[in-house]
C-alpha cells in the first residue's frame, strides 16, 4: 500500500479561507455602503462613484494582466535563454518535470540584493526571476529550494489571488482620492452643495470615511493573506525538492543579508516586494500586522516539521 508523506496543514487552510472570505466581505461592505450613501442622496454622484470603483477594478485587472512585464521592468530584469544560463534552466526544467507543470520563462535581475520572485498572469505566462546577488550567495542546492518556492507561487496562482484580493483595497484607495477631489470641488462650487448636503453630512466626507476604513481593513487582511501564501509556497517547495533544509538555510542567508543592506538599494526594490522570497524592507513598527512575509522563525519551524516527516523511518 503506497502511502504519502505529505501532511496537509488544515489550520493554515482554515485561516487562509477565513481571510479570503473576510476580504470578499470587505468588498461587499464597500459596495453596500456606497449604495446606501447614494440612495439617500439621489444625486448623480452614484454614477461617478461607480465609475471610480470600476476604474479601481480596471487598475487591478491591468496590474494582473501585465504583471510579468511590469515586475520584470521594475526589477530591471532581463529574460535569459537556456544558452545564456544553462544551469539555472536545467534546474528549473527538472523541478517543473517533478511538479508536472509548464516551464516558466526565466529572468535575471542585475542587482546585489539577494532575492527572487515569480510573477505572470497564469502558469503558462509566468516568469521566475532571480537576482545576481542571490546567484552569488547561495549554493546550488539552496538556489534550487528558492526556485521551488517560486514555482509553487506560480502553481498556486498567487499573482491572481493577490490581485483579486487587493481589488477592494485599490478601489477604496481610488475612491478616497475621488472623495478628496469631490470635497474640494464641492467646497468651491458653493450652491452645488444641494446634492451633497440633504442629510446633514457632506456626502463626499461619508464616502471618504467609508473608503478609508475599507482601505485600512483590507490592507491588514492582505498582509495576513500574503503571509499565509508564503507559508504555503514554502511547504509546497520543500515537498517538491524533498530538501526542506536547503530552503531553510537559503532563507537564513537571505534574511540575514537583506537586513544589513544599505537603505538606498532597498528603496529601489520595494515596489515588487510582495512577490519576493524575502521582503526587501528592513524592520518597521507594527511588523506583525503589516509585514508581507512570515517571520523567519515561523518559516523555519514549518520546514523542520516537513523535514521530520520526510525523514521518518519506514518500519
Amino acid at each position, binding site marked *: 500500500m503506497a502511502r504519502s508523506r505529505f501532511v496537509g496543514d488544515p489550520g493554515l487552510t482554515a485561516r487562509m479561507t477565513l481571510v479570503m472570505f473576510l476580504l470578499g466581505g470587505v468588498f461587499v461592505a464597500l459596495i453596500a455602503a456606497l449604495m446606501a450613501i447614494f440612495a439617500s442622496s439621489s444625486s448623480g454622484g452614484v454614477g461617478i462613484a461607480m465609475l471610480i470603483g470600476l476604474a479601481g477594478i480596471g487598475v487591478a485587472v491591468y496590474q494582473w494582466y501585465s504583471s510579468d512585464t511590469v515586475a520584470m521592468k521594475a526589477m530591471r530584469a532581463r529574460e535569459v535563454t537556456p544558452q545564456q544560463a544553462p544551469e539555472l534552466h536545467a534546474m528549473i526544467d527538472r523541478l517543473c*518535470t517533478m511538479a508536472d507543470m509548464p516551464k516558466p520563462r526565466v529572468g535575471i535581475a542585475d542587482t546585489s540584493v539577494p532575492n527572487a520572485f515569480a510573477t505572470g498572469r497564469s502558469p503558462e505566462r509566468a516568469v521566475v526571476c532571480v537576482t545576481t546577488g542571490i546567484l552569488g550567495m547561495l549554493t546550488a542546492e539552496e538556489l534550487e529550494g528558492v526556485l521551488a518556492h517560486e514555482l509553487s507561487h506560480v502553481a498556486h496562482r498567487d499573482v491572481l489571488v493577490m490581485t483579486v484580493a487587493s481589488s477592494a483595497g485599490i478601489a477604496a484607495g481610488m475612491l478616497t482620492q475621488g472623495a478628496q477631489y469631490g470635497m474640494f470641488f464641492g467646497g468651491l462650487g458653493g450652491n452645488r452643495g444641494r446634492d451633497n448636503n440633504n442629510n446633514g453630512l457632506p456626502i463626499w466626507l461619508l464616502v471618504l470615511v467609508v473608503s478609508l476604513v475599507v482601505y485600512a481593513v483590507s490592507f491588514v487582511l492582505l498582509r495576513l493573506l500574503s503571509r499565509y501564501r508564503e507559508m504555503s509556497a514554502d511547504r509546497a517547495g520543500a515537498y517538491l525538492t*524533498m530538501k526542506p533544509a536547503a530552503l531553510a538555510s537559503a532563507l537564513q542567508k537571505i534574511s540575514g543579508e537583506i537586513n544589513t543592506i544599505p537603505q538606498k538599494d532597498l528603496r529601489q526594490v520595494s515596489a515588487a516586494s510582495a512577490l519576493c522570497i524575502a521582503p526587501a524592507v528592513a524592520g518597521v513598527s507594527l511588523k506583525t500586522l503589516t509585514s508581507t512575509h512570515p517571520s523567519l522563525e515561523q518559516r523555519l519551524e514549518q520546514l523542520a516539521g516537513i*523535514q521530520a516527516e520526510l525523514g521518518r523511518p519506514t518500519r
Partner: protein
Amino acid sequence: MGLLRSLMGRSRPVQANLDALFGVPSAAITLQTSIGLVPTGDGAVCYRAPAGSGFAQAQADMVELLESASDAPQIRVTQDGFGYSWLEVDHPPYDPVAGDLGGLCTDLHAVNTTLEGAGFGPSLLCSLIPFADATGRSVGLVYLYKQGTFYAFAPAPGGAQERDNLLEIQIRDALDGELPVERDLSRWLALWGAPGL
C-alpha cells in the same frame, strides 16, 4: 478540484505513474528492427533522495531486493551535479537475437514500487534505458514518471553538449502508438552525463 486546491495554496506533490514501463520490451524490438538501435541491457532510475533515515532505509531495502534475485544485476547508486541520485541496474550485455528486456523492466519497476511504498513516490524524476547502434552512438529512452510518457535523448556524437534532434523525433515517430510518447518538446529534458550514455 485541482485548480481550487492550488488557489487555496494546498497543492500536493505529484505521484509517479508507473504503468507504462512494461511496454518497453516490445518497444525495444521495434527500435531494433526499424532504426537499428539495440538496448545495452542496462537501465537507471533517477530520483531525489531526501535526507533522513526513512529514505536511507527504503534505498537499502531496494538494493537488497534487487541483489537477492538469482540472476542478480549489479547495482550502483551515484549522485549527479543537480542533487539527484541515479540507481544504475547493470545487466549482462543484451543479446540482439534472443534478448528480452523483461527482467530489466521488472527490476526498474521494483525500484519504483519500493520507493512508492515507502511514501517517496513524488521523488521519482525519470528512468533511462540506454540503446546503442552498430556505429557505437548511444541514445537513451527516457520515461518521465510524473507525466507517464517517453521520449528519446540522443547526444550528438563528438562529445559537445548537442542533441541529435532528428534522431529523437525519428524515435518518437517509430514508437508512437506503442508507448505513450511525450508531445510537449519542452519536456524533453537534456540528461547530460547520465549513466550508460
